[in-house]
């Protein structure tokens, strides 16, 4: 996965697109802000989600955050590894620490997301 080709949300999720399948996770910045992640909960495979619907809960030592779906579609795969070992997300947010794959209904939704450069600019403002 090339991080420069990913899309990002204001809520710090990243999306990597392969055909109509979007792989999502959270950015390195988000993982750093959350600190040690201790528990992750995802919906079941097969669930349909709308863009920016909550699709999971990320619990860190100091806080609990919601995960938002960057796209509309159906959840087709969950990364069980991060559910069992959430610390993977802190170690490798863009590689082993991916969360789930969603089959997108319409890839035009990606237009409203940030590009890598736009996301970095956004972080600069935060």
């Amino acid at each position, binding site marked *: 996965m090339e991080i420069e080709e990913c899309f990002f949300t204001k809520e710090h999720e990243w999306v990597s697109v392969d055909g109509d399948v979007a792989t999502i996770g959270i950015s390195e910045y988000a993982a750093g802000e959350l600190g*040690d992640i*201790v*528990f992750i909960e995802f919906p079941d495979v097969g669930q349909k989600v709308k863009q920016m619907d909550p699709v999971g809960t990320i619990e860190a*030592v*100091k806080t*609990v*955050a919601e995960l938002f779906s960057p796209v509309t579609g159906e959840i087709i795969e969950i990364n069980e590894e991060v559910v069992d070992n959430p610390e993977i997300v802190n170690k490798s947010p863009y590689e082993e620490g991916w969360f789930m794959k969603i089959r997108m209904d319409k890839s035009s939704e990606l237009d409203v997301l940030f590009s890598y450069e736009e996301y970095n600019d956004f972080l600069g403002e935060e």
Partner: protein
Amino acid sequence: MTGTIFEKGLHGRSGKYIPENDCPVDEALLPIQRKSSLGLPRIAEQGVIRHYMELASKNYHIDKGIYPLGSCTMKYNPVVNEEIARDNAFCGLHPAQDEADVQGALELIFNLQEALCEICGMDSFTLQPVAGAHGELTGIMIARDYFRERGEDRKFVIVPDSAHGTNPASVSTCGFTPVTLKSDERGMINPADLKEIISSETAVLMLTLPNTLGLFERDIGKIIEIAHDAGALVYMDGANMNALMGIVQPGKIGIDIMHLNLHKTFSTPHGGGGPGSGPVGVREHLSAFLPVPRVVKKIDSFEFSWGPEKSIGKVHSYFGNFNVLVKAYAYICRLGAKGLREVSENAIINANYLMELVGRFYDVKYPGPCMHEFVASAVNLKKHGVSTLDVAKRLLDYGVHAPTVYFPLIVKEALMIEPVETEKKETLDRFAGIMEKISREAAENPDLLHEAPVSTPVRRLDEACAARNPDFRWYEGK
């Protein structure tokens, strides 16, 4: 670190006070006689006392010093309340006793219901729920049955992001879907934003007042009007009522349902795991839905009423945590209307005074005036590589309890500080002085903070490990 009481008693010691059995044993009972040891600690009386004294001296509590845990109202609880609640006339009662034998207890429940109605401007109160979140659930159940009776199918409950974290959970548990309302740049609900998301499918607007930023909603009148115009009920999380007593009667400004935390506002020791009490008050149109039994007054007696049929039923065994009700009633009687107002005024003055002092060295994103608490932030120390957690841990080295940290979620590196009304000016000055000193240490010697605490019985704990692999068990010989 202190070992468990079991570890201290493993070397053949004992505090044996039970004499050997000198009665004949029924043969028939022998097969079921216990063979294994009882597993009690093998320790003599003095060892027991020393063990618990050691733990008590290591513990930090309100009797030792300031406990500025935001949102928790860790205030001093007058001893007289304890004495009254411990009186055998109250604690010797059994909840299943006949009404005629417990008239005094019923009178106390009735009078407390009336007092809370007066303080909150509500028409009726139930004292059954035993925690704040339990009160929330009870209140939302009342709203659910209210709309069910009217034949209205409303699915959503709007919860501002400045509300207590339990609110959305209570909403979900009750079958509604929580919808988050973002607060505006003032840290408050913006009526225009509320209008955007409210609809005929909104059942309840559930707000915390004052909110978790310690702010009173400036537009509360408009906010309630918008909710009522949409046909929704307005629920107030009244856990922060210690800022409003004698100043605002929520029922009189249009709040339909609210709960109180007697173990915060009305002086029951809090933070030791309970017991708590979360009474729920409603206005007239919802009174029939309150849990039963309710205590009612007859001409010269008090009795339980099991009507009306619309009631959501029982939410707890018997009548809630009666012992906490006794303390709350004693507290209210002793202070009276004037005293309760002074409690709130002092809580507000203390918080504003401390915010002014702490705000000189830390960020305060939403400047005052605040109510009973305020939210500062250590985000200005980030440039030294210091986090809020480091500040909190360093406070322990100076012998004070840390404030609530990383809550509310809408403030980065939050330090949520509630000094409470029972702390005097010198204590606040000392706390502010320590906060100032820590901000200087952050700039001059950040490692002091990274390594903190160094003077506590245990150093910095591996919280991630504790959360990922919790192990609460202890085995003999382990």
